[in-house]
């Protein structure tokens, strides 16, 4: 087990290092970052001054190394646009995104798992078909459009919920639904498939044969086993969702890290963009690592692979 964890940890570290290099090299995608930063109408002297000020005249690998060393100590440089340290900018905004992500994944689990279980207990029933419809529609629904429909319906027509902002829990209802719906189809399908698989296994037949009540069979014997892969899927989905929060936050004007990403991208604020890509990747890497470890702990067969 320890061996497995160390291996996974090493892999996660290498992935993080590669992602950090890719997000750093974004700076050089535009050609010369000094010219881009100086803006239009800058003289050659300005460009040279900026190049020296920011250290763009050094070899790229040297710049990467110094950026990485600073980043490891939490220093991502200063935002071009906000003129504030990037790390404090992100730290301020991250709590909203984390809260949104937690609400979203909870919503997805609370709707998808019961639906998946019922669908598996009664295959081809109305509830099974409804669940299938929800998941097929969820995969095709553009999340920005879904968010706008909710605003039209619940904020403009019915006037039940506020369309934007972060002042109260009511502001989080629609963003939670939109973000959660994104993760729902996969969780529901996996729950349903897992339950169907488990329900046809020998130990369920044994449990029924020894006279256990149907409730006990379903929850004590079946769901406990079927839920294992769902837990790790939820962790992975959580990582994806934080990356996808940029859309939801920009629709509902939630001032979280996703909104910050959108602002900094539209303003060519590269230090902030680089740091945000790295931060969101880190979340994904951490969540998948935790999911792997959890899986290996719950199911020893996973440790060998």
């Amino acid at each position: 087990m320890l061996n497995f964890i160390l291996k996974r940890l090493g892999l996660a570290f290498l992935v993080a290092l590669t992602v950090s290099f890719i997000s750093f090299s974004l700076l050089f995608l535009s050609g010369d970052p000094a010219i881009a930063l100086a803006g239009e109408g800058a003289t050659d002297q300005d460009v040279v001054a900026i190049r020296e000020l920011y250290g763009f005249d050094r070899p790229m690998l040297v710049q990467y190394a110094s950026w990485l060393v600073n980043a490891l100590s939490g220093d991502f440089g200063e935002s071009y646009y906000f003129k504030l340290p990037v790390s404090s900018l992100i730290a301020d905004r991250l709590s909203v995104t984390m809260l949104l992500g937690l609400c979203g994944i909870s919503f997805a689990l609370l709707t998808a798992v019961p639906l998946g279980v019922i669908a598996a207990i009664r295959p081809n029933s109305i509830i099974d078909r409804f669940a299938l419809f929800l998941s097929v529609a969820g995969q095709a629904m553009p999340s920005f459009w879904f968010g706008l429909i909710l605003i039209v319906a619940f904020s403009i027509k019915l006037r039940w919920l506020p369309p934007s902002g972060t002042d109260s829990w009511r502001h989080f209802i629609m963003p939670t639904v939109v973000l959660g719906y994104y993760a729902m189809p996969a969780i529901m399908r996996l729950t349903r498939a897992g339950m169907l698989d488990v329900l046809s296994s020998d130990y369920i037949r044994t449990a029924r044969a020894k006279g256990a009540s149907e409730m006990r069979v379903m929850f004590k014997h079946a769901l406990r086993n079927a839920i294992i892969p769902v837990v790790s899927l939820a962790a992975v989905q959580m990582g994806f969702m934080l990356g996808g929060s940029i859309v939801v936050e920009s629709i509902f004007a939630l001032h979280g890290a996703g909104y910050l990403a959108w602002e900094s991208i539209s303003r060519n604020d590269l230090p902030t963009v680089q740091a945000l890509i790295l931060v969101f990747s880190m979340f994904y890497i951490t969540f998948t690592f935790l999911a792997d470890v959890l899986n290996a702990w719950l199911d020893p067969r996973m440790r060998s692979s």
Partner: protein
Amino acid sequence: MTLAPSTNSVDPLLQDIVGPTPGQQLRRRFFGHRGLMIGASVVAVLLVIALLAPVIAPHDPYAQDLLARMKPPVFLGGTWEHILGTDHLGRDYLSRLIYGARVSLLIGFVAALISGTIGTAMGVAAGYFGGRTDAVVTFLINVRLAMPVVLVALAVVAILGGSLQVVIGVLGLLLWDRFAVVMRASTLQVRGREYVSAAQAVGASTPRILLSEIMPNILNNLIVVITLEMAHAILLEATLSFLGLGVQPPTPSWGLMVSEGKNMMLFEPWLVLIPGAVLFVLVLAINLMGDGLRDVTAPENRS
């Protein structure tokens, strides 16, 4: 089966003994699958609309008419002159929707083609050669999955400028992960089969084995992933354009139309509802088609 000269003229008695040919079985599974048929029909209709856009569209999608701004659609009290009304610049909404189908389908198709080529090459190499190649490809897949797609795509489009080519290129270079995962797994399954060993034993070259032994046998999985990733690319393009960092105005893109209509959502919600609904229908149809193709071609579902 050798007794039957042509499948159509088989004696009914003989048919009972011989049974349907594999081709007939495939066709039956194909046409008997409701989701696949519905999805494929909708995609076909939208494809024809996109191809014939200049013929079908009642107006020029770029022609502005500031005297006829934000006319409502026919069913909300508008005129037949503009069936789906006009946008904030007086452009005919239906014509823009029709030309928007071209943008979506083109981006979806070419992006899936690019990412499919990259992902298939990586996945097949990893599955066939195994060992170090497999380790490297698996690592690259992990790196790719760790990067937030929307964020990276937005950032790259913002740096390089939003044009059709840039959006297609960025999506093509980002969406290869599922191809690599599925193609790797399929190749692993096929690699140990007798016909591959036989080809190796008679001394066939590696490219030959990959192209004429491995590829034909994993092609069905590839087609399924291509359809699903096409839908993914179309959704992502719309998202990028909606956020203002995808296809740039005045190009008629459905995501851009939703974004332009957003400001007038309070009074004219149809400006947002119509293009989003069309996008939803297209993506839904492609997904139904992909899921259907998987059901029909998956060997484990054959009775």
